[in-house]
């Protein structure tokens, strides 16, 4: 940013800015000012793709409308304000690290855990899922607008069962054809069953999330086209800690999911085509490739580093409490409060005893994701816990708040 600031104080206009960013081409930065822009990423790195998306949100001209398409390697993306311990089975993420014999590695290898900057719930990304983002001016924004655009794209590929539901997600209606409906209505299909208690919930193929700033509105969504991992996704998104955690923050609304069974290329072409039609640009829209080269831009590099950092991933968690009280097999009642991803308080009580042991003050501030051994940490947290109890309790916490191994930080 230093280079850019120096450029700003001269205040002679945009030209100065461009000189500062040497490696990315002049035309790429000019493009940020165009009224309609379309990008596709060649990278499978979720941290990079989200950083490029964020850069486009911050730096594109306020009146412009942008489409970005990207595909990620297997990764779990949690919402801005979610709790990874609650939403994700963290033990499965690093199969090499985990030492519990009963959990079988599903064979996906390393799965990244990413906290995005938009709201909403947790989703699983892999190469059978295409992500789409539209950035536009707030006055033109509604929550459904671009979900409808994607539904029209799907319908143009023959997916006539797709529609936008009340939660702005895209679902595939199941069952028999019931009625003729207006083909332009993106919220109804000929297969839509009206509300009733016996209604089968149609599987979700795309979920949406939003980020709204003063000048820009970002809407991004997934699209499950041909994921080979549908049957193991539930394992990743089911945390053993869930019944034991009380938390504030947005919980994911879980829905049955399904594949559309369309190729990535077919979908990408259809979405681009609908986007072109909607934002008809007299010049014709060029679909620009983005990728690792964009790491040369300092804001992208900074955003990338932030998204990869464990601080961002774990310390942005809203306050929560984890307690053994709901687990009948636990012999001790232990409760820990975690604020900003670090222990802020807690107590321990032997079952059947009235005496409460408070958390040792020196443990306040211990970052949960930095804990390397629960039995050791527990003996520091609470005085007078003997060997067997410590071991048992340690194993319980290890299951609930798994120790985080070092993650690979290589850009693919």
């Amino acid at each position, binding site marked *: 940013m230093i280079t850019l600031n120096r450029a700003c104080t001269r205040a002679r206009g945009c030209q100065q800015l461009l000189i500062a960013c040497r490696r990315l081409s002049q035309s790429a930065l000019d493009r940020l000012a165009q009224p309609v822009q379309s990008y596709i990423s060649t990278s499978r790195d979720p941290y990079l793709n989200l950083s490029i998306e964020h850069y486009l949100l911050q730096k594109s*001209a306020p009146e412009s409308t942008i489409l970005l398409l990207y595909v990620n390697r297997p990764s779990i993306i949690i919402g801005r304000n979610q709790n990874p311990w609650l939403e994700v089975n963290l033990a499965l993420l690093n199969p090499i690290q985990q030492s519990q014999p009963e959990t079988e590695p599903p064979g996906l290898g390393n799965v990244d855990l990413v906290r995005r900057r938009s*709201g909403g719930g947790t989703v699983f990304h892999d190469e059978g899922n295409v992500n789409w983002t539209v950035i536009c001016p707030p006055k033109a924004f509604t929550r459904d607008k671009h979900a409808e655009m994607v539904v029209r794209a799907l319908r143009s590929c023959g997916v006539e069962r797709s529609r936008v539901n009340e939660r702005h997600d895209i679902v595939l209606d199941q069952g028999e054809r019931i009625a003729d409906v207006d083909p332009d209505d993106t919220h109804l299909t000929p297969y839509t069953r009206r509300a009733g208690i016996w209604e089968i919930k149609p599987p979700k193929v795309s979920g*949406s999330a939003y980020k709204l700033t003063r000048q820009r509105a970002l809407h991004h969504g997934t699209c499950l086209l041909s994921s080979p991992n549908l049957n193991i996704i539930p394992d990743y998104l089911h945390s053993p800690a869930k019944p034991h955690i009380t938390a504030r923050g947005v919980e994911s609304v879980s829905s049955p999911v399904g594949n559309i069974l369309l190729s990535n290329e077919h979908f990408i072409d259809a979405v681009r085509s609908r986007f072109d039609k909607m934002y008809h640009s007299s010049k014709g829209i060029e679909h620009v490739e983005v990728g690792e080269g964009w790491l040369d831009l300092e804001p992208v590099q900074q955003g990338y580093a932030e998204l990869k950092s464990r601080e961002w991933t774990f310390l942005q968690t809203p306050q929560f409490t984890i307690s053994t009280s709901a687990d009948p097999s636990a012999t001790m009642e232990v409760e820990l409060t975690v604020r900003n991803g670090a222990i802020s308080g807690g107590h321990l009580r032997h079952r059947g005893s009235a005496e409460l042991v408070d958390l040792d003050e020196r443990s306040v501030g211990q970052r949960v994701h930095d804990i390397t051994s629960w039995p050791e940490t527990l003996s520091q947290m609470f005085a007078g816990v003997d060997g067997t109890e410590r071991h048992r309790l340690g194993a319980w916490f290890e299951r609930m708040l798994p120790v985080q191994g070092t993650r690979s930080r290589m850009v693919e």
Partner: protein
Amino acid sequence: MRTLLLRACRPLNLTSTSRLQTQLLHAVSLRSLHTTHHLNIVKPFLLADIGEGITECQLIQWFVQPGARVEQFDKLCEVQSDKASVEITSPFDGVIKKLHYDPDDMAITGKPLVDIDIQSEITEEDEAKLAGGGGEEGAGSAAKESIGEHEIRVEGAAGVDVAEPAAENPGSQPTHPDRRRSSGKQDHSSLATPAVRHLTKEMKVAITDVRGTGKDGRVLKEDVHRHVAQSTQQQSTVHTPMQTSARADRKMPLTPIQTQMFKLMTRSLNIPHFLYTCATDVSSLTTLRKTLNISASSPDQRLTQLPFILKAVSLAFQHHPLLNSSLDSTDPAKPQLTYRSAHSFGVAIDTPSGLLVPVIRNVQDLSINEIAAQLRQLSEKARDNKLAPSDFSGASFTISNIGNIGGGVVSPVISEPQVAILGIGRSKIVPAFNQQGELVKVEELVFSWSADHRIVDGAECARCAERVKNLLEKPGKMMVEMR
């Protein structure tokens, strides 16, 4: 100069050169307007309606702290509501005085978010936004996310603040005609500069009445003066805008009682209610009361029907404890039913601020006189707004008496975790036949029992209702059941 530099150093959008110019000129012109009214007041800035019927959102992080100096459009905080993460910016220049929430708290729409010591001109428009008027829907287009929307409108107004309008950049031009096409108060922001609007306030003129001769129909100071000179004979025209605005719809945030009622009753939607009504002959009860009240020491020591009814219900509950139980259905697969030993009756009271339901505890151990005394105490406290949260907690059953207003058959709504509720209307004299077949006058009061059909079946509820009826129709029966 320092302020100007700070504005210049903010990351520039590539097409915003001319906006930068207008912003610089805005900063300058604020200073030149310093000689007129400079408002220095601390005002709470309310969390605007972000649409989608969302009433609260979680505060994720603050970008400012108390004491921080902010300029218009500086980021204040980030909030999250279900799927959307939203950045909220300051509409004013000023100093942050107080943050109303901690990170992770739920911020409520329409309630104060921060207190700002405002150090720029504010107008009636901006005041309305402070009073929670930020929920207007789009300027013609379908823009539903009003936070972003209303910030843009304010920005447009600021850009207009220059005597010599700078060359407007083509990007923002389309927004102005859109805004003017919309109806109602939104128009004002594009019709005049803050200085002119302040003048219209001082001269007590409605800006919509003034014909603007400036660029794009903008109202200038001369226009206002001219209008005042002309309209001294036309006093009535000033009043009409006020009349129409008095009939306009008002968007109001829910009062605390309404909010609580909304939450509670929404949960009650899960309960399958059935209604059992029972007409009770309270003539004997009334005769008894009249006798007792003759020897009452003062008018407010007189016994009403309600203490008798409460005691009769408590006596009936000795035989029908199911209606006094609590249902915990947080896990729908494993509902937990608890038979409560204490009869803690919530008594619904109508107060000027709305419905309140304070609780009388251990009715099974109280005499009718004691119950009456407690009722009187609770009413007084309710009137004086002295009820504490502890007065409302732990009811096992509720009685709702609407009789002082009216009512025959009513259909009351059960509050969880209770499983039943009794509603009482107003008694009235009706014709009936006595045992000899003669027509007599009878004072009839309808008891409307509502119960949760997941736990209570019709027969059990009916048996309890009939028992209460019998106890009240022959008050002597209550005497023999008393402990």
